[in-house]
């Protein structure tokens, strides 16, 4: 299956080598968000929120993905 990933803020740097803020990633069917993070080399401790198809998911890294899902990854934010 293939999912589309967008990385926001400081997480954006993980996708830069793939060409931008967004990437298409092929994963085994039923893979979790955690597996997606591992595939992209993203440090799980840097991820604050995970949204799938526009909604923040409560199960975060354990969430099982489906073909065509859009995944948004957000780092935590402090003052600015």
């Amino acid at each position, binding site marked *: 299956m293939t999912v589309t990933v967008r990385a*926001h*803020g*400081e*997480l*954006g*740097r993980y996708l*830069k080598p793939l060409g931008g*803020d967004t990437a298409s990633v092929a994963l085994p069917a039923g893979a979790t968000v955690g597996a997606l993070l591992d595939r992209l080399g993203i*440090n*799980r*401790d*840097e991820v*604050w*929120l995970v*949204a799938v198809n526009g909604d*923040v998911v409560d199960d975060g890294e354990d969430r099982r993905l489906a073909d065509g899902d859009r995944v*948004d990854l*957000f*780092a*935590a*934010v*402090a*003052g*600015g």
Partner: protein
Amino acid sequence: MPYGYNGKILHVDLTRRRLEVEERGDAFFRRYFGGRALVAYYLLREVPAGADPLGPDNVVVFAPGVITGSPVSGQGRNGVGARSPLTGGFGNAEGGGFWGSELKRAGFDAIVVKGVADRPTYLWIRDGRAELRDAGHLWGRTTGEAEDLIREELGDRGIRTCLIGPAGENLVRYAAVVNDRSHFAGRTGVGAVMGAKRFKGIATRASRLGLVELYDPAGVKAVATWMAQHLDLVAGLHDTGTAGGLKALSMAGGLPTFNFQAGHFDGDDMITGTAMRDAILVRRDTCAACAVRCKRVVEVKEPLRVDPAYGGPEYESLAAMGSTNGVDDLVALAKANELCAAYGLDTISAGATIGWAMECFERGILAPDDTGGLELRWGDGRLLLKLLEMLTYREGFGDLLAEGALRAARKVGRGAEEYVMHVKGQELPMHEPRIKHALGVGYSVSPTGADHMHNLHDTIYLKPGRSLDYLRAWKPDLEPIQAHGITEDKVHMLYLWSNWRHFLDSAVMCHFLPYTPQQMAELTNSCTGWDTDVWELLQVGERAATLARAVNAREGYAAGSDTLPRRFFGPFQRGEARRAVPMSPEEWERGKRLYYAMMGWDPATGVPTRRRLRELGEAWVAELLETAAATD
């Protein structure tokens, strides 16, 4: 010859048009550093209790710090301070750019300005010489126009400026001080204090580089090199700026929307750092010697012209003028940011005051009869621009908005005060405490009124990582925390982190650089030749916070002024809660008392105790507070 600083503080008496230099050495600078601590020191020493913030007895302090002017990323900032015309208490803000660094290299560590000029005046500093000059031709001009005129008149394009615009001249209570036309020392209204003194600002030029002697230039260079090799740690900041986190906050229910009635903004995608980068960013700017280059420069030609000379909006400005007012028009927000830079307005207080008015209009507390016929409707970007003009020049309804939300609400009556989102009269910055509860305690106890920079953002400590490691410099056994609830550990973290931020604002260093506390100690020692460590630096921050608290205590502020808007103890009025949970008033109250105890402040009144002041080497302040209390 001292290292890292000049040992010279310039005192300017505008009434007598007299300049004097105060000379100070290691004992003084190691204690007060610069920025916030120095501002607090001079406010206590120079301003009599009860002085009118807009009168001759108030002073304005301009202060870089002992690291400013060294060739390292993050040092290009300076503090400004005064008794605040917005809060009536400790006023202080920091701005970036090049001016602070230029001042250090031009031979001064700080400038203390008192009195009132009989005509518009500016100060010209070049290579250790200072001169008061007529500013009649600059009065009424924007920051950019005034900078151009000064450079023309003095025949030097390299002059750096620290100026007010028309907002400061017109005594808008949240007028900013603007460095190099695009960097704001925004908060607490110091610009209005300058306006009241008929003081347009300071033009500065150092003709040689490297005038500040460093004890160990190789040591400073090592820190600069480390930063240049670790730019990946701030790559997101460079790429999308401080607004890179806007979408995350909105997804969490943490983006102030409709005057904090909601935490998610449907138009968020239109105003993110990514949207700005892709639509209107023309280049990135920086502060003196900084390799990060996080500053935005935006340009728009149609439908509104946005001048790139004024930079571009930070997160706070996009949220305060954007989501807080329901505005998702990025071009209008870029224009609003330009107006705030040109007029010299704090974007946060300006946006938040307008947001208060919008909510009052929605609730029928304000009507077209009050607003000169204006319909204050959420989401109207053109109206936002019109209101910024009106409040800068105090035209019509703008005269009310120029007073700040709290004073405006008290004039309006009819229950309008309920909708003012403030602490101590300062409008809240753009962080929602219902998604990070200790932040709410930090808002309440801040000496400047609600502040997000010297505050704990609970959500960056939910997992192991750099944020937690940073605090482990002082408390090695810290473990990840929850976003909600206020525990003793969290208050301890607030105590450590806010004091560290008070130190950084005394140094005066950028908060976004990823230097560890140990690196900051090494950098300080390389600049000065001292043998300081992370604990002594933390105590500099604690001294700054405690002296600032004393400034407030002298003006009658006590624990009862450490408030929080009632809104945060209940659910959102609109939209989903997402990650937001109402704060518990009992936990919040207990958190404040714990913080006072850790700071060595009286647990009942929140006033610094004589004992802690003595421990900090500031017994003279205890005497000052006792005298003030005796004359009350």
